[in-house]
């Protein structure tokens, strides 16, 4: 992202024509995230025009609270999409983790959170074994995992998890509570911490480089000594853990769990990564873009709610905006 376009490759007829507009165009092509920042600001302002109360601490706080689980789920998707993978089971992992947390809630927050994380680790690792070791297509592997988890938790919800639908107070605070006079939600703090971790992981660590290498060219990375199955196993496990964390926060925010807890967040988590410029074919993308994608989706959600247009128009607008934004982003990045 930091590489500037070299003048030698410039196709323009003479340097005089390089107006400020063109130069800024080229800057945007190499730094497409600013487009997203611009879109985000415009969306916030439009929402503010529709509902003036939105441009307040509590209005923006609600959007941030909504964005946190999407952003955390999308972190898993980003990591996997860099390897040309995807996790369609991540929402079901989140729901399952929330069930475990609710089940263990009477035994204290530590057990509840650890139990939830174990769900994420186990399901994620199984995905990783399927994709990394047995070379099952990620779409199919995680789709099947989603079905398996749905079946298991539907059954367990009536048997071993029966009655355990109430969350521990600590988790409720974590998911829905705020501090600093009710201004900053704890969930956003969790998300911010994880974000720093993911950005560091992708940008600075060897594991991050392996992810990019694997997604960019599997054969080349394997020939240069990357043990692809280990990288994939780790990546899917991490995605599972992120799913579990998002599940804990969602369960805490709602206060109770049911089987439809996280399902609606599955496609938005993919959409956030995609809007943020992560390629579904692997090798290209950043988590910074995904964060912006998650924030845009959250603001959009507030906007559509304030418009009061009903679910039908909301979904149509939502779909159109995904298409429009990804189109705009590709158009700007392609001029590079």
């Amino acid at each position, binding site marked *: 992202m930091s590489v500037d376009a070299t003048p030698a490759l410039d196709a323009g007829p003479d340097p005089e024509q390089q107006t400020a507009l063109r130069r800024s165009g080229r800057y945007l092509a190499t730094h497409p995230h600013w487009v997203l920042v611009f879109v985000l600001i415009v969306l916030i302002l439009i929402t503010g025009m529709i509902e003036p109360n939105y441009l307040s601490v509590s209005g923006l706080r609600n959007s941030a609270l909504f964005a946190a689980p999407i952003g955390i789920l999308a972190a898993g998707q980003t990591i996997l999409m860099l390897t040309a993978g995807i996790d*369609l089971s991540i929402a079901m992992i989140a729901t399952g983790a929330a069930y475990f947390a609710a089940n263990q809630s009477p035994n204290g927050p530590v057990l509840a959170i650890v139990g939830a994380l174990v769900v994420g680790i186990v399901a994620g690792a199984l995905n990783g074994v*399927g994709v990394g070791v*047995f*070379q*099952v*297509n990620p*779409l*199919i*592997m995680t*789709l*099947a*995992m*989603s*079905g*398996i988890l*749905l*079946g*298991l938790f*539907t*059954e367990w919800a009536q048997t071993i998890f029966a009655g355990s639908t109430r969350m521990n107070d600590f988790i409720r605070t974590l998911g829905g509570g705020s501090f600093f006079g009710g201004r900053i939600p704890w969930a956003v703090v969790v998300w911010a911490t994880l974000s720093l971790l993911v950005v560091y992981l992708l940008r600075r660590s060897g594991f991050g480089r392996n992810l990019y290498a694997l997604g960019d060219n599997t054969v080349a990375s394997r020939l240069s000594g990357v043990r692809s199955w280990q990288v994939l196993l780790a990546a899917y496990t991490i995605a599972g853990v992120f799913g579990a964390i998002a599940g804990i926060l969602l369960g805490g925010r709602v206060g109770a769990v049911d089987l439809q807890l996280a399902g609606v967040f*599955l*496609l938005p988590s*993919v*959409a956030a990564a*995609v809007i943020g410029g992560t*390629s*579904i*074919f692997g090798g290209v993308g950043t988590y910074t873009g995904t964060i912006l994608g998650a924030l845009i989706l959250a603001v959009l959600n507030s906007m559509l709610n304030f418009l009061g247009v*009903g*679910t*039908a*128009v*909301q*979904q*149509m*607008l*939502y*779909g*159109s*905006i*995904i*298409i429009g934004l*990804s*189109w705009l982003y*590709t*158009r700007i990045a*392609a001029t590079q």
Partner: protein
Amino acid sequence: MTAVTTDPLASGTQPGWRRWLRRHGWTVGVWLLLGALIGYYSTLIPAFGSFQVASIVNSGAPLVFLAAAQAVIVIAGGIDLGVGGMLVLTNVTAARFMEGQPFLATLLIAVTIIILAAAVNAGVGWIINVSRVPDIVITLGSLYFFQGLALAVLPNPGGGTSELFRWIFTGSRRGIGSNPYPAIALIAIVILGLAWWLGKTRSGLSLYAVGSNKTAAYLSGIRAARVKIVSYAIGGAFAAMAGLATTAIAGRGNANTVGGNLTLRSVAAIVLGGVALTGGIGSVIAVVPAGLILFFLNPILSAMGVDPNRAQVVQGVLIVLVMMVTGLIEWRRRRTT
């Protein structure tokens, strides 16, 4: 996955039937699996007859059509997450406008819906071409769009259709019966027609060409962009067939059906049917039994006395196992050749 590997060097040295089996082994295998499952099912329940066959074929038909829609698009190198949304949209549109109409009017409405669905999905293909955004992203958007549009067309479950129209898809004027032949005939005609077009005509083969190597296809004179639009149009038409079948079976439309789940089942069906998600490989003939098997596992498992929730688990495990076996076969084949 290597159902349609054409290897000119090997073909000259092998006997005809072995070559045929090598090329169509996956298709034969999936049909045999379906046959074995039906045979096993008939031993599980006391009265196995035309009613059971009819219920499998009728209820499986939407998934078969939807999988065919997905298969055409995936063979041409794309993937359409929106087919499930298109199913829901055409389902509710048909149910809304067919209610209380005579048979001929419903037939006319059905044809119009198929043409419109093809045109709309061709537009999706066009957007993919022009925007150069990956298929999966644009069709994620179209999935939401169709689902929203469906809610606008029919906010509450309802609507209806004519009795004869229901008969075409189900062999019964009330949607349930023991006459499987109309549904079987319909699936056979439509799918064989599609398979013939894909495998025997220039325009159909160009889908395989573009799907396996877009640049090579373009350089050999195929208009790759147009092929993509054609594949999406046909996918849209088949998704509409699935939607119409749903209307005929249920006798009504329901916009609250989650289209995304249907899309995911269509992807699972084509993968089980041996269509490579990378494009260029696969046969729609194998997708039919695959779709039926995916649907059919539920009644089998419930006849075996498995709890429906655990049946879901078994279904997921089975899909993964099949994929692992395929991967293993592929790996061994690559080592031997």
